[in-house]
């Protein structure tokens, strides 16, 4: 009998010990004053080499150029997991030194005092400040520069010239109006061609062409309330597209990826997306691919000559890392490289618009989609500080995505949809 009691005690003790054992092997900081410094870059994809090849290339080049001095390592996880991880790591102080974060979440990090103010960095590096050309303003809350744009986003519609030719429809231009656009949709439909490919199962991923709609109805002038006559007009234009059967039949159940594939396969004339798809479009459609901002509207006073060239989500710097001089030096060196002309050239080569602007960096002739975007930008129009959907808190952002897709699918009337956004903002 006594042995049995011992056994029980032993088992419990063993369990307690295993717990304590691992409590022991806690932190082991890598940063020291001399020798190579390694900094962590938290990124929102699990496999950067395949899923963010441009950033991966920039990091590889940086590591090669600073061999033995600085090394950048990825801390990689898919977007959803990454966003959870950053929140958890903020709590226990294990955040990476630099990390990508969703624009809607970044202000919370700034308020919590977790991320560094980069205005000093910009002041010290006037050339980079100039190259960013105001694009960094989206991530300045008045008190601090809490982030810098990861890349530049150009959003709107890609279109397939071959299908327009087939239907005998003129290509859209920067001056095309809503009425002309609707006529275009009708003609494409009459020719048996799906006008616009969109997958709204993951609604955040089909938002892009409508950012231009919101901007052209004066999104930036909104004051607290979303259900305004101007916004109702804007949403009515989206509803009109549904009514004209502008979207693919599978809009409710297909994903962004399926919608993209349909466009690349030549099964739809237009596809709402952004610059990250340039490479895929070039590869599949070659010289037939072109880019358009979306229609101009005549029933509003808001400026129509707006180009949706906006910063993508920010990358931010861990405030704690900036306090360690060795790490701060490495971070500064990396930012200098990331926003320098070499990285910009790497970016262009990978069909991605960098956040910076350098005179002698451009796309090659066979980067059709990108050249079409550059052409569209050629009119020198103004751009908003940030894309409308990137100016909101996570809850209102969700509500905006819901609102747009509720209208596309006919579940919400324009006014209902906007009321839901107001309700989300009130919570």
């Amino acid at each position, binding site marked *: *009998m006594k042995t*049995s009691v011992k*056994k029980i005690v032993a*088992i419990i003790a063993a*369990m307690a010990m*295993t*717990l304590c054992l*691992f*409590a*022991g*092997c*806690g932190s082991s900081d890598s940063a020291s004053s001399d020798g190579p410094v390694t900094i962590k870059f938290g990124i*929102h*994809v*699990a*496999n950067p080499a*395949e*899923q*963010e090849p441009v950033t991966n290339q920039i990091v590889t080049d940086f590591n090669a150029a600073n061999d033995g001095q600085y090394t950048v390592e990825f*801390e*990689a*996880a*898919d*977007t959803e*997991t990454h966003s*959870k*991880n950053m*929140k*958890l790591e903020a*709590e*226990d102080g294990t955040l990476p030194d630099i990390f990508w974060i969703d624009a809607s979440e970044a202000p919370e990090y700034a308020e919590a005092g977790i991320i560094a103010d980069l205005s000093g960095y910009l002041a010290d590096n006037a050339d980079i400040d100039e190259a960013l050309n105001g694009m960094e303003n989206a991530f300045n809350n008045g008190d601090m520069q809490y982030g810098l744009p990861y890349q530049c986003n150009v959003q709107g519609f890609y279109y397939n010239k071959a299908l327009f030719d087939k239907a005998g429809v003129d290509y859209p231009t920067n001056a095309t109006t809503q009425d002309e656009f609707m006529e275009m949709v009708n003609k494409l439909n009459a020719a048996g061609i799906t006008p616009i490919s969109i997958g709204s199962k993951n609604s955040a991923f089909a938002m892009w062409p409508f950012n231009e709609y919101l901007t052209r109805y004066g999104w930036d002038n909104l004051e607290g309330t979303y259900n305004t006559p101007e916004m109702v007009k804007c949403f009515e234009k989206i509803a009109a597209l549904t009514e004209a059967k502008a979207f693919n039949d599978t809009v409710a159940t297909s*994903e*962004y*990826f*399926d919608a993209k*594939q*349909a466009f*690349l*396969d030549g099964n739809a004339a237009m596809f709402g997306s952004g610059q*990250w*798809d340039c490479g*895929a479009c070039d590869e599949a459609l070659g010289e037939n691919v072109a880019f358009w901002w979306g229609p101009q509207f005549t029933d509003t006073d808001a400026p129509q000559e707006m180009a949706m060239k906006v910063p993508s989500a920010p990358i931010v710097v861990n405030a704690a890392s900036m306090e360690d001089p060795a790490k701060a030096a490495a971070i500064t060196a990396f930012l200098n490289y990331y926003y320098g002309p070499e990285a910009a050239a790497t970016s262009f080569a990978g069909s991605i618009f960098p956040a910076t602007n350098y005179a002698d960096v451009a796309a090659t002739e066979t980067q059709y989609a990108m050249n079409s975007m550059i052409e569209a930008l050629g009119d020198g129009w103004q751009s908003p500080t940030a894309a409308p959907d990137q100016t909101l808190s996570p809850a209102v952002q969700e509500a905006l995505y819901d609102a747009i897709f509720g209208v596309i699918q006919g579940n919400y009337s324009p006014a209902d949809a906007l009321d839901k956004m107001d309700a989300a903002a009130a919570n």
Partner: protein
Amino acid sequence: MISKRNKSLLQLLIAAITILIVFPLAWMVMLSFKTSGEIMSNPIAPPTSFNLENFTHALDILNYGQLYGNTFIVCIIALVIELICTFFSSFVIARMHFYHPGIKGALFTFFILGLSVSPFILLFPVYKINVFFGLRGIWALIFPYAASSVSFNTLLLVNYFKQLPSEIDEAAVVDGCNIWQLMFRVILPMSKPVLATIIIFNVLYIWNEFPYASVMLRDVSEYTLSMGASFFKGTYTVDYGGIVASSLMIIIPELIFYGIFQKNIVEGMTAGAVKG
């Protein structure tokens, strides 16, 4: 007795049900030979050729030796912990004598409460608890996994133990068994079928578990199998071919494991083991 005609009818029925249920799996195997573009453009069409590219690509990107190894280690350790713990506690609840019989019911209810919890609710709190105990890497998974199985195992074990006739215990005690002998020499051999079921479920749970694994593991060298699929889905790109192939790489060992278990243990248990 079942007539011959009825028998073949029943066999037909079994075959029909099986086909209906297996159809999606067969479809998935078929998809694994198609490129990602083909899967999206026309998922129903058969593959144009017997193309193993998805598999070679998956093997290129992921270190399967390491993934299998990590998953296996997590599985074994968590399984040992949870089986020992729940075998003991369920034995107490199901077969020991309590002065107030209500306590048994209360303990049982207490232990199965956890079944009602969706794992993602526990993600943040468990992370914080792991940090508090300094649990890192695979150890940050093993304890939560073991804990997640407590409710399920209790439910199955207690209900099973209750079905065993109570005379067994008395006979064993009269024969001079102590409590360990009773548990390990008498009850344990009689519990093979339920233990087999539990082991299968526990192993499959751990093998496929994603939410905890994705949040607790930081280092690629610690990753478990379920994280493989995330390597093929980026923000703006998806490689369905890679996902299907990597999923099959997860499933194949499971199917083998299940087949072996099903055959040797569940079936191997002779009806005579429960004599009552």
